[in-house]
């Protein structure tokens, strides 16, 4: 018997044949002893699979699993290194951007001082206190902080690496596929 007929009988047992194919299979079974023998073997196999007993479990697997679920997951070493990389990248960026931030802060402080003067706030105004506080905080940093002095392409690479570290770190640390 050829493979086409065998496959036909296989699907006949599954009940997935069209009406035309089912009639073809039934004619084959009527005419061929080999087809009937093949079908009988398949039916025996189906029955054996249906009757296959379950093996028992030798231990309760739920206890160790629940213990694993309930215990806090320690932070893996690679995650700690990643956090360090993120912090380093952020620090390098901050150092490189500091001159720009400084100049922005100075300009905004001057603008605030002018605004307060123009509004003629009282002697012990909150505004004056804020300006004095801002000066006290910023002044120590106005003396030069060493800049990295990077070339444009190095600067671009640094930004790219810092951004990649930040995105990768957040994606891994705050998603289900990450530290958990």
């Amino acid at each position: 018997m050829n493979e086409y007929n065998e496959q036909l009988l296989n699907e006949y047992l599954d009940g997935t044949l069209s009406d035309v194919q089912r009639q073809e299979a039934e004619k084959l079974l009527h005419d061929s002893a080999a087809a009937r023998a093949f079908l009988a073997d398949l039916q025996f196999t189906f029955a054996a699979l249906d009757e296959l007993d379950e093996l028992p479990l030798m231990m309760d697997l739920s206890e160790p699993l629940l213990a694993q679920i309930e215990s806090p997951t320690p932070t893996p070493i690679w995650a700690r290194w990643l956090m360090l990389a993120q912090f380093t990248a952020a620090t390098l960026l901050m150092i490189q951007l500091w001159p720009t931030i400084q100049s922005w802060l100075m300009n905004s402080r001057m603008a605030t001082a002018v605004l307060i003067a123009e509004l003629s706030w009282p002697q012990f105004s909150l505004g004056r206190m804020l300006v004095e506080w801002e000066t006290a905080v910023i002044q120590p940093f106005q003396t030069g902080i060493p800049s990295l002095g990077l070339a444009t392409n190095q600067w671009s690479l640094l930004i790219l690496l810092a951004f990649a570290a930040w995105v990768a770190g957040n994606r891994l640390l705050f998603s289900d596929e990450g530290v958990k």
Partner: protein
Amino acid sequence: MVEPTDSTLIRRTQQGDTAAFGLLMQRYQTAVFNTAYRLMGRRQDAEDATQEAFLRAYRALDRFDLKRPFAPWIKRIAVNVCLNWLDKAQNKTQMTATELQRPGDESPDMDQWVHHTPTPERLLEKQDQNARLRAGILSLSPKFRAVIELRHFQELNYEEMAALLKRPLSSVKSDLFRARKQLAQILKGVI
């Protein structure tokens, strides 16, 4: 006392009650273990796969649709776990019938058979047939084991099997036919 339904246990797990998940696991761990055992062939590997399947289920439970039955879902997770591990192991789990007869892998207690089998001869025949069938299933390639498992033990139709295995319908039909033919020959003693 009425036992809680699967939906109740799942809802309680979603609310943070891990003991409810423990009950759910105890309810289905044997069935999932047998699914894994038919695919992996070793008791230890099957136990590991069972735990991994339930761990993945626990993590995905917040997205589980309560209208669906839990048993088919967890079994499919187990099938995926086993197939992934088999892909990585690359046929390391092929076992001979002799290895299957190691202590700890025997059939259930004889007492369980007494109520269902009238004669000792029939009992021995059935045990022998089951042993040959298990050995036969494990002698199949992983993709043939998968289609036998999904069709005969999880009762998926061809389309569902093709979707789960991410393979064309014609390939799944062909694999199932060849797997059944091979098992039939093993049971007849031809192979």
